[in-house]
């Protein structure tokens, strides 16, 4: 192993350790911000996971909301909260199973279809006021130490995601996934089960997006449709993913941290401008920094290498 | 009559695959010329390079004394070069008449559009009969006639025709070549690419044989027709 790898590993361990003890060392405002970063990392990565297999998931905010509601509805039945959390993840996958058919569609159509899912889910919730509280919202039963628990659950989730993605990108499956992303027809003619991969990755994406919704709900006393089905969340996750670099391991994480911090600051000062800035950033990013930060960096690095070789 | 087209040392490629290797040939104004050769020899590529659908790597294409390099397709059509592409590329949901109108899109075409339509209907009376029908409802032969007619609507001086006889019955092919002869007599130069060597050599004045992106033989078509290599390779004799 070269020095860079060792250093990176050490660095990561230090950061994780620091994050693990920060609830006891830092003021709650900062801890809360870190917690939000975790949530958005999970959201951004769940979009990333779907994109890896060539599926676009523009409905993450809908799955987030669905997870939130499943969690809030499961708690009163005295289901211990870890199970409820897992339920919010798996439950969403189960509910959204029929929509896996949509994965047969071409890119842009899939994008639009996933975009409509949050509307469907939130509408259904609103139309069943007896079961879900409808427009009036839902009260969430309390859980011991909600903030600490949610913090650590989120931290663990982020770690799992990053580790899993890192392993995946180094594995032989990466080639198949790249093939699917590049050219679907060529990939299937090579015998790669495109649809199966897409279903699998999309389901994982749904799981984590909903799981994040469940985690957040742990910390809340009350939820309603307007708060948990928010296009802002989609905007942040998309911008984070694109900025950091689609289909990279660390890109969405970096992007999520950056955007969470920026948006929280903006949210405090101006009412709605943060959404406008997010939108503007999305446009500019795609126009000028297409691959995202990490990809642009690696492109620059290879260009520098080429220059060195020439001289 | 001078040279309407001069292709000099033209090479071109699709991505990393070179298709044409420094080919050179010329076409006399008012004549009928053919490029023949087997599949994949580069015949279609040559026409696409002339009309501008494909950029060339090196060499020059000169039309009536003008270097065509860097000229857009639109410009070339305005100057009087028109391509009737392989597979006809008609507008399927437009009527025969609308397809013809589109053919006359350029200024050059629009000026003479009414005249040209009359001529085209004389040449292909069946098109006049079917003028209100959607292009996709026509038979293969009729579609080819429409494609050629549409090409004529731009009032070209040089008409490039790609694989006209593909998939058509011999009677129809015969009929189409008769039409081509009439068109040449009216003063339009025709350069065609043809797999059907028999008809190509009968119709054209001179021909070029393309193999693997190089011109391996050229000359007057009656000489080529009696050439033993040609007879063996292409005429199956």
């Amino acid at each position, binding site marked *: 192993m070269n020095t860079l790898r060792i250093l990176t590993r050490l660095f990561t361990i230090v950061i994780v350790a620091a994050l693990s003890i920060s609830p006891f060392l830092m003021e709650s405002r900062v801890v809360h911000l870190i917690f939000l970063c975790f949530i958005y990392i999970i959201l951004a990565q769940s979009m990333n996971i779907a994109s890896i297999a*060539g599926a*676009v998931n*523009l409905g993450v905010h809908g799955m987030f909301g669905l997870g939130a509601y499943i969690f809030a509805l499961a708690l009163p039945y005295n289901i211990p909260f870890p199970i409820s959390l897992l339920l919010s993840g798996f439950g969403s996958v189960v509910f959204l199973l029929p929509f896996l*058919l*949509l994965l047969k*569609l*071409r*890119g*842009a*159509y899939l*994008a*639009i*279809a996933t*975009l*409509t899912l949050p*509307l*469907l889910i939130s*509408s*259904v919730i*609103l*139309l069943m006021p007896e079961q879900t509280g409808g427009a009036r919202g839902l009260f969430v039963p309390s859980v011991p130490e909600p903030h600490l628990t949610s913090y650590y659950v989120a931290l663990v989730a982020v770690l799992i995601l990053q580790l899993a993605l890192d392993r995946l990108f180094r594995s032989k499956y990466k080639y198949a996934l790249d093939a699917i*992303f*590049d*050219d679907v027809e060529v990939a299937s003619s090579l015998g790669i089960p495109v649809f199966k991969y897409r279903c699998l990755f999309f389901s994982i994406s749904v799981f984590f997006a909903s799981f994040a919704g469940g985690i957040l709900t742990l910390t809340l006393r009350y939820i309603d449709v307007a708060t948990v089905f928010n*296009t802002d969340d989609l*905007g942040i996750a*998309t911008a984070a993913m694109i900025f950091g670099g689609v289909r990279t391991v660390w890109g969405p994480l970096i992007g999520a941290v950056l955007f969470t911090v920026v948006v929280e600051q903006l949210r405090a000062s101006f*009412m*709605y*401008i*943060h*959404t*406008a800035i*997010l*939108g*503007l*950033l*999305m*446009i500019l990013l*795609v*126009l000028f920094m297409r691959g995202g930060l990490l990809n642009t960096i690696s492109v620059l690095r290879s260009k520098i290498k080429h220059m060195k070789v020439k001289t | 009559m001078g040279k309407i087209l001069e292709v000099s040392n033209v090479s071109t490629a699709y991505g990393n695959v070179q298709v044409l290797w420094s080919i050179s040939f010329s076409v006399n104004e008012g004549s009928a010329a053919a490029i023949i050769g087997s599949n994949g020899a580069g015949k279609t590529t040559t026409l696409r390079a002339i009309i501008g*659908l494909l950029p060339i790597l090196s060499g020059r294409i000169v039309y009536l004394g003008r270097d065509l390099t860097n000229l857009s*397709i*639109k410009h070339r*059509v*305005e100057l009087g070069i028109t391509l009737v*592409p392989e597979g006809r*590329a*008609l*507008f*399927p*949901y*437009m009527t025969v008449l609308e397809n013809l*109108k*589109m053919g006359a*899109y*350029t200024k050059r075409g*629009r000026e003479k559009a009414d005249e040209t339509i009359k001529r085209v209907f004389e040449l292909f009376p069946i098109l006049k009969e079917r003028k209100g029908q959607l292009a996709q409802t026509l038979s293969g032969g009729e579609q080819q006639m429409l494609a050629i007619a*549409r090409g004529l609507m*731009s009032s070209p001086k040089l008409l490039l025709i790609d694989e006209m006889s593909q998939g058509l019955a011999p009677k129809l092919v015969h009929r189409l070549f008769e039409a081509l002869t009439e068109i040449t007599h009216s003063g339009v130069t025709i350069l065609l690419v043809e797999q059907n060597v028999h008809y190509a050599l009968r119709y054209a004045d001179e021909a070029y044989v393309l193999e693997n992106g190089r011109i391996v033989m050229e000359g007057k078509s009656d000489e080529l027709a009696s050439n033993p290599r040609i007879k063996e390779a292409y005429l199956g004799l």
Partner: protein
Amino acid sequence: MSSVESFISPIIVGLMTGGIYGLASLGLNMMFGTLRIINIAHGAIMMLALYFNYWLYTLYDVDPLIGAFIVSLIFFPLGIVLYQTLISPFRKLRPVDQELFPVVTTLGLSLVAESLALTFWTADPRMVSVPYLQTGVKVAFLYISAGRLIVFAVAITGYLLIYLFLKYTYTGLAIRAFIQNPTATALMGVDVKKPPLIASGIGVMITAFGAALLTPLISIDPRVGGQFLLLTFVVVTLGGLGSVLGAAVGGLLIGVLESFTVHYYQAMAFPALMVVIFLMILAIRPTGLFGRFKA
């Protein structure tokens, strides 16, 4: 009202609104046909057109019907700018990117538009009530508001104009040709940068026109953009991509459906219903009723 009347009335109302939906969806159809991209900002454009017309009425006393024409004229160049900045930069990329990047840029644009609308006009719903349009007109045994009738008539005229443009002008012909076969269109001597550009301008223009016509009929708030997006997409998918007739038929059908849902059930169910229909069409018959391009 007898039961027959109470059945017919929603149909008529639905048809009238549907006519306008068809017009707005026609714009989406044209853009998709030429650009082959999905414009997520379509709903936002409609929302902005509505607010613009509202402004013209409240600030300058401009009759909403006249305002609709003014708005459409303003939105024509906006459509061209939209195409130039958010869509054409991606023309040379590989197909995967070419399809997805415009989705992101237009999504960004819709976020910007929605937040700007919230900032300038707040989330409070606005209504435009124009007296002469409110009066009821008796048609057979029904009372229909004059507003609906006039707006419907104007929408039909708009449709006819677009149809005539596409069928009988050279520019319209070139756009149709481009939709059917871009390469062949280039061979006809058309500058192939022009048809998608003009189609975008016209597409956005008729979308804005259709939306502006709705000004006297509905209540306006920023969230309307998302609902319009869904609605127009359902209309286009139902009617079929690339089909002018499809947009009309789809629009009418959806208009009637909306009317029935509101009348017999509740307004809130309509978006959910539309999503279900949308997804079903995509799953079962992606080309829609009259369409020529597959999803």
